[in-house]
């Protein structure tokens, strides 16, 4: 535990290790909320695709059934944080300033995916765009844009 803690506070070496080993789930293991919703990361070349496997605990609307919108947003926010940490090699965990999500379709009770685009990266603030889909990348279930404090 104490070993974990020193590694976590040293975000830079954590990010470096993850980039070197290509095991991005190692990063997720340190974040309790990421384990709580059960998300995963896959790397394809230079691209990261985030996955939220279907999990009963994440259901909001029991009628459809559908994922809770908040879980989807949390998944997208965590995805953006990892994207920033990996591609900007940040020395701290980026802090969210604002998060705005548009829900386009119902997110059903099945595997969900997300990808992130760093739209603009300034000295202190980064703007990230996040797309989220289930069956087809062209049929997005949600999009979001967010600002993060970085350094």
């Amino acid at each position: 535990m104490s070993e974990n803690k020193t590694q976590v506070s040293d975000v830079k070496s954590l990010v470096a290790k993850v980039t070197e080993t290509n095991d991005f789930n190692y990063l997720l293991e340190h974040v309790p909320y990421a384990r709580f919703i059960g998300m995963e990361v896959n790397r394809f070349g230079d691209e990261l695709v985030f996955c939220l496997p279907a999990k009963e605990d994440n259901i909001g609307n029991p009628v459809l059934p559908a994922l809770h919108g908040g879980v989807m947003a949390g998944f997208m926010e965590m995805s953006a944080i990892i994207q920033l940490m990996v591609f900007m090699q940040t020395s701290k965990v980026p802090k969210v300033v604002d998060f705005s999500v548009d829900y386009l379709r119902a997110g059903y009770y099945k595997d969900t995916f997300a990808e992130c685009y760093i739209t603009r990266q300034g000295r202190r603030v980064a703007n990230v765009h996040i797309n989220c889909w289930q069956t087809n990348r062209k049929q997005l279930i949600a999009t979001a844009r967010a600002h993060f404090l970085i350094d």
Partner: protein
Amino acid sequence: MKTNPEFFPMTGLATRFVNQLVQCRRLGLRVHEASEHHVLLELPYNEALIGYPDTGVLHGGVLTTLMDTASGCAVVCAIKQKFNSLEISPTLDLRVDYMKPAQPHQPIFGFAECYRLSSSVAFTRGIAYQNSIDDPIAHTVGSFMRISPEMVGDAFRQALMGDEQQA
């Protein structure tokens, strides 16, 4: 915190609504009070929800879930009061602006109100806070689409109505 159900007649409906959502049960969300104007929820602190392990601050996604639930719940209550019907409105969009990080090891309160209810869209705003609503953690605005009451489903309708005998 104690609430008077006579002041907040929709607390029962809001409680049953929130308890129907699996994710909200996992988070341990609790309804404090609800009326046709507002909903107040409490999110207890839980180490499983930490987003920043070195400080113990909860993940932003938890706050989004809290405020999405509070806002959606406020819409359900407003529609029930105005049209005496049950509609479960899906979120169209939600924006969360963070004022400051939440203190670890303390519950977070989520206050939301439905300030405009039109024929097809409901508009909400909300505040997440810990010690005082005048010292917010986050502000939120959202819009929700209205769908026909038939979409609710009989089982869900029954679960929401509880002991109250109404259509």
